[in-house]
């Protein structure tokens, strides 16, 4: 329900604990291995459980979740720094959330290839054409076959 808090002890008869502003933040990631179309992959805080993920997505984002499976990814402790000390990459928890009622999700392409061709008759286009002409003029005669200018008569 929140990270780094001391939950009050529950005894039978107590009212249900409610958290209104949670400390948890989920990260939607692109799956490394191909997942079925109804599965969404998240990186979640280590303190979160499957039920927490389901309630989080259901109450904050109104997402209907059918199933959540979690695993903890161990971060390596093998790397060493310039002082030969071991450096630990942090562990993290991964949640695979399956959406219900036949909904699907496809991770979007965050860095689409942009078309860098400039518009015709714009400043960039004229500049580009001018630069190309200049470079063409600077080049040596291709019939010399790569032999330099100063060599010869």
């Amino acid at each position: 329900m929140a990270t780094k808090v001391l939950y009050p002890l529950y005894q039978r008869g107590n009212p249900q604990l409610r958290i209104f502003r949670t400390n948890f933040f989920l990260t939607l990631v692109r799956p490394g291995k191909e997942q079925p179309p109804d599965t969404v992959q998240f990186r979640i805080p280590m303190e979160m459980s499957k039920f927490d993920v389901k309630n989080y997505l259901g109450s904050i984002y109104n997402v209907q979740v059918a199933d959540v499976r979690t695993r903890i990814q161990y971060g390596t402790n093998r790397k060493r720094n310039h002082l030969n000390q071991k450096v630990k990459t942090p562990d993290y928890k991964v949640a695979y959330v399956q959406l219900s009622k036949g909904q699907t999700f496809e991770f979007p392409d965050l860095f689409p290839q942009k078309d860098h061709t400039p518009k015709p008759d714009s400043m960039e286009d004229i500049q580009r054409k001018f630069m190309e002409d200049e470079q063409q003029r600077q080049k040596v005669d291709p019939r010399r076959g790569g032999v330099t200018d100063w060599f010869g008569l």
Partner: protein
Amino acid sequence: SGYGTSVGKISKMAAFCVRCVGNSKLSNYMQLKRVRIIHTEVLAQNPTALSPLYPPIVPSLTARSKAAKQRRRDEYYKKVYAAPSVQEKLRLLTCLQRLKYVVNTQTSAINADRWYQHFTKTAYLSGLPEHFTNSGMDQVAETGDIVTSKALSDPDFEELKSLFCTALLQENFYMRKRTPFLYRTIEHYFSPFLNNAVSALTTLLAAQNPLLKESSLDFKPQVNFYWMRGERVVPRGHRKGSVDPIRFQIDDHPHSQIRVPKQLPEFVPLDYKVPAEVPVIKLEPDRLPLFKRQYDNHIFIGTKVTDPCVYGHTQFHLISDRMHRGRLTKANLEDQIEVRLRANAISSLFAWTGAQAMYQGFWSHEDVTRPFVSQCVITDGKYYSFFCYQLNTLALCVETDCNNPRKNICWGTESMQLYDTVEENDVKGFNDDTLKLLVQFLLYRPKAL
């Protein structure tokens, strides 16, 4: 040998001729005249005396090459084809243990039925086959090889109905029981009821269906099946890059089953064009999620191979409390209720019919010559779903599946209620249609009887 020496002579002559031909004026003359090698007398007299001089050239058995691997596989298949008995064949097919996916018949995985259809190459058709829909309880018809039931006379039907009600009341009202343990409610209240109901059905209907007189009713039997489908490339390790078949194992424990000595007739012919498609899933089974284990590969129908009752008739499954429809409705998963029943039916019946076929000596490289048919009823005491399965092909591994047009077929119904509630001393809202369908299921038999 005679042939050897004559060939030797011919080759020497040919060599001589070639040398002559190359060097001198004689060569031009011989080329112009087109000199031919003489045909020997031995060959002219008996052409069948040609025995090969050298043994056939085959790939090595022990080399680390693809040809050697293929040769080892071929030698293994030859051993299986030539196995003297079914037990030996099964032993050869299941002796090697490797990591395999364990397919649970009662899963909590979402949309498991599509995955299971892909693993078992099954097409699902909703509704039951024509045999059950055409013939009502009141018709007598003969369609080919199947004889539909004569109407179960009303007093018999009433007797059966009263037996069912008594069994229900016995478990839910008359008998004082402790509160059931967690997730054991259905087993606590309905397992003994189903015991009594199935026994009553078989004994009462044995009069109409003589096959049931020779049948064997098992309680809590074990049904296992092991098969290979698809291939995968090993991603890491010392075998990285090599191609491995994907292995599956089903270990099923139905509530009860009826085994018969004679095979049930087919619902549709072997080369029937199924209107439904088998879903193809390109992802690996780990995404379902399905987990791998390595242990003994079992193929078992409920008894050993030498038993007289080696063909299956009907299975009865009691669903687990985790799949109970109340729980799924509360978790907002109503559409998964039917999905789980279908997955259960497809996996259990495929395992049972596949094992029956293997008991007759068929395997993935010797495909079935006649379809194997079984039925099942999946229930939680109140709701009943009926499924029929026809196994048309066992050839599911990559080598045999590339040109195999046959598919296995599963027919199924939605859940039907048997009764509404059990109030003190009374079963309210008993549905006769469900019981009639149950009776029809059990009366299915070949024409010869």
